[in-house]
């Protein structure tokens, strides 16, 4: 695992600590399709930022860049204010970013404890310390109010919300400072959605940064501190949730106010 971190740190210390993740004039194109054009993005510790936009606006491209799945064509990634190149998702982990994807990357046939520690099992002399594993996992589940029937139940038997819980627990146990959640409540019921949003708020209250990608504006207004709107690969606007309205965000997404915003 290598992080090519360039030490040319421009920001002052305290400020760069608060800024967990950033993008500066990032562009990415797939053939003729420009997925992102000169986008800036910021995620600070202790905040929930929502990334919204229509299909093809560039949301998932940003997620993939921030989680090390793809590299931008131009522009830079900042981790705690330092320019960084992610060569793989592991570099992103090492930088403290953990992505909870839609498919969650869980192994259905294995139980909760094994999934939470997948690839990072605590061990001594190559033997897994199962009790320690279950205890640490249970601590996290209790602290965050994540409810699963038991540590030894296979993930195949869990509901969508419980699976989200397992994936989030994994992020926490890996000490992720920034958590990226792609459509965290897709296909969840009302009660489960509320539960996942609770967990997201707890992550923020603990001083982690959370990036939530969602189509659901009600959810976004419910949980996010800041809303970053993308349109056709460009930033259409960034608004504090408390100082904007549904209508304004919808306009930004649809491009109705494009004349005011373009030029960025």
């Amino acid at each position, binding site marked *: 695992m290598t992080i090519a971190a360039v030490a040319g740190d421009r920001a002052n210390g305290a400020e760069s600590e608060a800024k967990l993740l950033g993008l500066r004039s990032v562009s990415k194109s797939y053939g003729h399709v420009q997925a992102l054009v000169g986008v800036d993005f910021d995620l600070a510790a202790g905040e929930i930022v929502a990334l919204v936009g229509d299909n093809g606006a560039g949301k998932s491209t940003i997620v993939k860049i921030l989680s090390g799945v793809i590299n931008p064509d131009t522009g830079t990634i900042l981790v705690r204010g330092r320019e960084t190149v992610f060569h793989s998702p592991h570099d992103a982990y090492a930088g403290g970013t953990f992505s909870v994807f839609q498919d969650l*990357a869980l192994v259905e*046939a*294995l139980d909760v404890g094994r999934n939470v520690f997948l690839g990072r099992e605590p061990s001594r002399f190559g*033997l897994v310390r199962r009790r320690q594993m279950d205890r640490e996992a249970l601590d996290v589940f209790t602290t965050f109010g994540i*409810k699963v*029937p038991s540590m030894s139940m*296979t993930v195949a038997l*869990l509901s969508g919300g419980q699976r989200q819980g397992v994936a989030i627990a994994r992020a926490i146990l890996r000490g992720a400072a920034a958590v990226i959640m792609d459509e965290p409540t897709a296909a969840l019921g009302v009660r489960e959605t509320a539960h996942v949003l609770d967990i997201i708020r707890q992550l923020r209250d603990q001083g982690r940064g959370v990036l939530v990608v969602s189509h659901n504006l009600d959810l976004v207004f419910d949980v996010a501190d800041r809303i970053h709107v993308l349109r056709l690969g460009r930033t259409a606007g960034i608004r504090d949730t408390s100082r904007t309205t549904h209508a304004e965000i919808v306009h930004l997404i649809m491009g109705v106010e494009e004349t005011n915003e373009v030029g960025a």
Partner: protein
Amino acid sequence: MTPTDKSARRGGARPAAGEPTEQAEGERGIGALARRALLSPEISLVLAIIVLGTIIQIQNPVFLKFDNLILVFKAASATFVMAVAMTFVLISGGIDLSVGSMSALGGVSAAMALTAGFPIPVAILIGLLVGAGIGTVIGLLVSWARIPALIVTLGALYVVRGIDLVITGGVQIFPLPEAYKFLGQGSFFSVPFLIIYAVVVGIAAHVALENSKYGFHLRAVGGNIAAARAAGINVRRITLSVYILSGTCAALAGMMISARTAVGDPASGQGTEIAVISSVIVGGASLFGAVGSITGTALGVLLIAIIQNGLLLMNISSYWQFVVLGVVVIGAVAIDSVRRQRVWRTKATT
């Protein structure tokens, strides 16, 4: 089972988050016991062995005699060593059809080394290295060249058998040194060495599978290869390792057979791969990866050995054994498929 029982169970299996879940509700009584037996391959196998053993014992009281039981275990020991490695292969999501040929090659390699005058430990090492070496080639073809394991090992079945016939000229190799024969025929307080080897291999494999990081990663690879890769598990190395293990164990089994029969037989082990895979599947391992255990495999091997022994004791023509084995394998997979639908709520499809 009352309707309330059913609804309680359905509610318990997929509880909504934020609600306390009571999985155990409606899980008492004989119905629950039968359900648990059906859901655990080990328990259903033990029951099958008890029922079968009782039938055989009634027909022929020789069955439960110590000497006969030892015979059953001894006959199963080489199959078990191969089945242990096959369990790892199936859990990783692969398959190895080459173990029958590999066991023959392992046996004749050691036998040829012995007749060439190498000391016994060196000859055994040569046998193991031949197995590990061919396993490495198979593993690399599967993990790096990404050729399906079914195809690679089907090819290896023929290639290895061919090598085995070429180097021996199709001729049995004997006589073998007395000390080597002793390793296959001797016993410790009337427990044959062969059984001891099998038990040692079984225990080591059980610990590796259930308690080591390697075992955890192996199941992850078989369960969801993308998730395993994303979690930083070296998927290629794990895949490679199971074929090396399988080749090595097959060679070891071949040497156990050659030491017991006191001959390096290039024609031995034909069709063994099917018997081994059948035993492992009967033992509850899934052809679709992630699921399987050494205890299940041990019971599967034992069940099949008891069936063979029982047919013999009950004076049923040995020709029937293929029919019976086939029915047992299909029955085991049928039960497995029911189990899947209840435990995983998914069908075994690929």
